[in-house]
């Protein structure tokens, strides 16, 4: 699949090194288009058959002052000829488009790593904004790296001489120039990006042309100047055959829920109020009205969930989504959904907290909130996708469980999953579960709280159905009739029935799978977005021959049936989490297993090396 253009002639004479995994980080000002550069490199790598994993890193400000430290935007990607699960601990390559980007990112670059710098931006004023006393291009602070100092901006402008675009816009093409450089260095074809640019800017052909000229200029510069004295190849990974696309977690979430609703045969209703990092789900869903999807941007989170519950009452698939602070606001209404036993899915794309916290960073610290953050005994199901693409599958699971058991289910994503992307093996329609819902219409024998024997679900009887007129509400219900009841014994019964109903979902969820041997010295038990780092750590340790396995909970309430058995098969259970030990608390309380909690709350995923060091303490 590799492309040989005429410009590639130099390359043939240079030494080539085969690598199996490379991590690149592109970093620049928010206005520098680093997210595009990153995603383009990612898609191209995926298309040529690498396995990939990515980590975008946005600034919290919309557009902090150009050149400032808070304005730095980054995109890290890991591509490999092996099966990979994380965007890489430390970049091997850092492309820094200005001094601020260098300042913020250099500490992560591996010792001896490749550093590509856009020298044009190392002006006195930019150095000052980044807080550099002396110019790192000139002092020896970069001596530990393989530094390539390139005038990326001016080269881009030179390449675009004669373009009709205004100067500012010409300058903006420099990210494609940088992309061209990297494509050469890692031997990627230009076609996929060419196609993308042409499609994206079809309405603005001058922009398309300028970007492509910059792309080629970067590529050719590398090819002709011999600034790089060798280049690299990263071969195809052994990936399950099939059709793939690159997808972010939030996209996968959105289309997962559209698919889920479609499978039930009911329209999707999404009530939401914008909040980082969940807003993209609203944006995506609002584009798909032709699926009958109704998106309702409410006045706040409470109204958003209120409308979703109302829609569920009326027979839609009720969905509401937010991040942690929004969940706090929704909690009273979630209680009502639990009491009225309506199917509802609540998305929580977790972010750093408490309070406003670190809105653009990731964290896994809402688990206990979704478990317990409501008055009284108020159980709900909880599922948590493990990877961006897994959001698709778990969205379907959430709807399946909510409609089958007639109860709210949480879908616990996070900023890392939501914004991160990975190649997704597109399922065929036959792979998707049967989950058509049916409403009660039979008048004879109808009682609003008469339960299904197996699931304990009450009937879903929607307004518009003749003869089933009934009233529901937040006051305790009488068993079977659903009338208001203050009876003490009835209350005790109902409290236990609601708990039992959630517990019974167990019969409908898959067993917990173990990666590695089913028993041994250490089990790494994880949940959510730490899947990549945990699996990679386990894999690397297994490759060393160490008795370490991993398991990942995608169903957090209830836990899969075999959970205790799995845990008891290991001498030590270590639970790494991006919080202060929330899953660990649940596991310890439930099974009385002395699980060790390993925690880090830094707004970013674990490094594989950190996990390995932790496990080593137990070997």
């Amino acid at each position, binding site marked *: 699949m590799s492309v040989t253009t005429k410009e590639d002639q130099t390359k043939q004479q240079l030494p080539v090194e085969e690598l199996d995994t490379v991590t690149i980080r592109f970093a620049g000002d928010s206005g520098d288009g680093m997210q595009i550069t990153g995603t383009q490199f990612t*898609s191209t790598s995926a*298309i040529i058959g690498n396995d990939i994993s990515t980590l975008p890193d946005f600034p919290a400000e919309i557009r902090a002052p150009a050149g400032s430290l808070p304005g730095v935007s980054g995109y890290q990607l890991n591509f490999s000829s092996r099966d990979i699960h994380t965007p890489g601990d430390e970049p091997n390559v850092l492309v820094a488009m200005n001094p601020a980007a260098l300042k913020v990112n250099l500490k992560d670059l591996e010792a001896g790593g490749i550093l590509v710098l856009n020298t044009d931006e190392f002006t006195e004023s930019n150095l000052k904004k980044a807080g550099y006393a002396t110019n790192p291009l000139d002092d020896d602070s970069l001596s530990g790296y393989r530094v390539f100092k390139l005038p990326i901006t001016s080269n881009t402008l030179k390449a675009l001489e004669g373009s009709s675009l205004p100067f500012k816009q010409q300058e903006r093409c420099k990210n494609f120039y940088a992309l061209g450089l990297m494509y050469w260095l890692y031997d990627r074809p230009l076609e996929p990006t060419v196609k*993308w640019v042409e499609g994206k800017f079809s309405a603005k052909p001058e922009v398309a042309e300028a970007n492509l000229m910059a792309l080629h200029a970067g590529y050719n510069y590398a090819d002709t100047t011999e600034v790089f004295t060798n280049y690299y190849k990263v071969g195809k990974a052994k990936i399950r*055959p099939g*059709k*793939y*696309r*690159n*997808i972010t977690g939030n996209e996968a979430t959105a*289309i997962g829920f*559209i*698919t889920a609703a*479609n499978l039930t045969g009911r329209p999707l*209703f999404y*009530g939401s109020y914008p909040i980082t990092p969940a807003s993209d789900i609203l944006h995506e869903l609002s584009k*798909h*009205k*032709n*699926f*009958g*999807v*109704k998106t*309702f941007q*409410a*006045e*706040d989170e*409470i*109204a*958003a969930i*209120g*409308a*979703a*519950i*109302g*829609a*569920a*009452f*009326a*027979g*839609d698939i009720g969905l509401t989504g937010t991040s942690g602070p929004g969940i706090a606001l929704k909690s*009273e*209404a979630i*209680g*009502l959904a639990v009491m009225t036993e309506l199917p509802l899915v609540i998305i929580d794309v977790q972010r750093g907290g408490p309070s406003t916290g670190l809105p653009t960073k990731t964290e896994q610290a809402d688990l206990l909130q979704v478990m317990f953050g409501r008055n009284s005994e108020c159980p709900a199901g909880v599922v948590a996708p493990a990877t961006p693409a897994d959001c*698709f599958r778990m969205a379907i699971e959430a709807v399946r469980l909510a409609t089958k058991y007639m109860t709210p289910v949480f879908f616990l994503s996070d900023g890392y999953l939501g914004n991160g992307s990975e190649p997704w093996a*597109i399922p065929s*329609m036959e792979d998707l579960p049967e989950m058509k819902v049916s409403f009660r219409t039979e008048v004879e024998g109808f009682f609003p709280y008469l339960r299904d024997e197996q699931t304990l679900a009450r009937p879903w009887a929607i*307004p*518009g159905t*003749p*003869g*089933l*007129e*009934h*009233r*529901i*509400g*937040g*006051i305790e219900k009488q068993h079977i009739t659903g*009338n208001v009841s203050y009876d003490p014994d009835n209350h005790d019964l109902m409290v236990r029935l609601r708990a039992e109903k959630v517990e019974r979902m167990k019969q409908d969820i898959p067993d917990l799978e173990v990666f590695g041997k089913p028993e041994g010295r250490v089990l790494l038990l994880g949940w959510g977005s730490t899947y990549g780092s945990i699996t990679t750590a386990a894999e690397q340790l297994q490759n060393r021959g160490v008795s370490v396995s991993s398991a990942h909970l995608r169903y957090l309430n209830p836990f899969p049936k075999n959970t205790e058995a799995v845990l008891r098969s290991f001498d030590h259970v270590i639970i790494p989490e991006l919080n202060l030990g929330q899953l660990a608390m649940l596991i310890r309380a439930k099974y009385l297993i002395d699980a060790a909690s390993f925690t880090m709350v830094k707004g970013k995923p674990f490094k594989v090396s950190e996990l390995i060091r932790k496990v080593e303490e137990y070997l």
Partner: protein
Amino acid sequence: MMRDESFIAGIKEDMSTNGEKTNGANGQTPVKLTRKDFQTDQEVRWCPGCGDYSILAQVQKVMPELGVPKENIVFISGIGCSSRFPYYMNTYGFHTIHGRAPAFATGVKLANPDLQVWVITGDGDALSIGGNHFIHALRRNIDLKIILFNNRIYGLTKGQYSPTSELGKKNKSAPMGTIDYPINPLSMAFAAEATFVGRSMDIDPKHLSMMVERLAAHKGSGFLEVYQNCNIFNDGAFKSFNEREVRDEKMIYLEHGKPLLFGKERDKGIYINKVKPEIVTVGENGITIDDILVHDENTLEPNLSYILGRMQYPEYPVPMGVFRAVQKPTYEQMLHGQVSKAISTSGAGDISKLINAGETWEIN
């Protein structure tokens, strides 16, 4: 708001003709319902003498007249004495949480615009904790029929002041007197540009049932304030103007297209001096009937309604009736219109296409 007109025109085209199905529209033979059909087997649990009984009776009386099958009617409420209402209506019902009824009702109506959706709320429920949802439901012009039982007190929690309690009122939570300037619910509704705004009271059943009918007939966000006596915690809150003996002089009934006259002799009227209403007497000081403001429910700008809504006892007679009833596209029409438009533009959604969209590649 420059874009309104053309956008609305566009929307009107997209709109499928959504609206509640009337009786028989399901293809069934219309069954004539009676008041009894709307009563439930649940014991009504308000205090004896509470004004809520009268409102319930009028609503149950009006329902059969509407020609909407009862399975297509939904009553949604928040929390409060008034919010127990749905339990007593043999329709679909949802007794939700405090202050949020409009949000739940919005979801119901958007999910199924064929339903006729009523919201029952109290002065605390709608204007204290629920003030924001109340305003947003109204401003979106979603077709909800909101009845606010205004008893100027928190009934269910036993007698704290509410946002409509009079300044200085002594009560459970303000033993030295309330220091909150009261809210005028109608002003809120006009500020939110509700398309239907009316007022009635528990002790005038004829007027009340007429207002409920008008509200039912309106398409769009409808708001009816009902003065309701809480004989336990705020007895006689309205009696200084609404007792039978004084009513004629102290209240004024609005009638569309008719001059605003009141008084036993119907000789007093409302005259607007610049923007300030004044009370004048026909036949005195050269005032003739032509000077009297003619009521007009249908002006799109709520200026006049706003001014009438601010007339308060004792300075003015208290207006009862429909202040405003105008027509604009409803929220559910526009939303479903966008859905229809999206389908006609992009074709009905196809899951296989959806998941296979974007850049894809094959691994063999």
